[in-house]
């Protein structure tokens, strides 16, 4: 599947008036499919936070934020607020991916699968890279280093992959035809799931 979610930085403010010639400028990072949607979401959030909307404000700039290094796997922590059938909840989820947008896409897929939450009901409060924090957490001493522990990966399902000598077999492989056209309903022989 082609990655669709991109990260945009939208900067906007209320239109200057005689009363307020230099209004405060606001900046938001948004994860959307296009620049146009980003601007729309900017106003959606801004009119909740500040007294401005698309008709009374102006967008000063929209730029796409590209991943600095898409060749290294990183850990991302995403804080979200989503609407379930019975209420709205906060959640913190972690994902390993090569780009932040990839991790955000994983989050949307995960939320859809686990909680039936759709894109429109999820607000991303914060999405950022989290250091693995393995060494830092081991060396951390609350008495000398303060009450706040160093930033680290929280979730066990991500922690289990933070191993520089990771190694696991693939014990049950489902054989799959290399092309769609080789798919058949019936096969002459029973499949083997060992080393397929």
């Amino acid at each position, binding site marked *: 599947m082609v990655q669709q979610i991109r990260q945009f930085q939208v900067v906007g403010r209320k239109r200057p008036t005689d009363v307020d010639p230099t209004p405060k400028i606001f900046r938001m990072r948004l994860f959307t499919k296009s620049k146009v949607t980003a601007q729309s979401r900017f106003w959606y959030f801004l009119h909740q936070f500040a007294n401005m909307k698309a008709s009374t404000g102006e967008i000063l700039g929209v730029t796409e934020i590209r991943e600095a290094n898409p060749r290294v796997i990183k850990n991302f922590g995403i804080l979200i607020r989503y609407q379930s059938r019975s209420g709205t909840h906060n959640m913190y989820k972690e994902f390993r991916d090569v780009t932040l947008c990839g991790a955000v896409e994983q989050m949307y897929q995960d939320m859809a699968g686990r909680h039936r939450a759709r894109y429109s009901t999820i607000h991303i409060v914060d999405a950022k890279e989290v250091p693995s924090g393995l060494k830092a957490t081991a060396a951390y001493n609350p008495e000398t280093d303060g009450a706040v522990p160093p930033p680290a990966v929280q979730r066990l399902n991500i922690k289990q992959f933070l191993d520089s000598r*990771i190694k696991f077999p693939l014990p049950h492989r489902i054989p799959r035809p290399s092309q769609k056209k080789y798919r058949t309903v019936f096969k002459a022989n029973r499949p083997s799931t060992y080393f397929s």
Partner: protein
Amino acid sequence: MVLTRFVEIGRVCMINYGKYEGALVVILDVANASRVLVQGLPGSPIGRELMNIKRMALTDHKITIGRNARTKTIAKAVAESDVQNKWDSSAWGKRVAKRAAKANMGDFDRFQAKIAKQSMAKKVAAKLA
């Protein structure tokens, strides 16, 4: 049934689905239970990318590299371990190459193959008669 092929850093895999079917890649890092960061062997068009484990088959070959090794380090390790030659001379590698050669046959190649088959059949028939 002892499991001898592992998803690990340095494991050489063959991609068996999609655009780069048949290409060899090296695992550089593991993202999760389904995705790994791979890079094609030197000379391959595949750059460093996340790929689904389901799209590849683990081979018996492995090179010694660290996590997220640089392209030059990978090239050196591949040359040292001679993976490309080991693959080409293995039964699996030969099978893949044969299939690729057959798929790339032109009309004249098919004609030559037909004549070769006929002449072989003639010799066998003569021997049996």
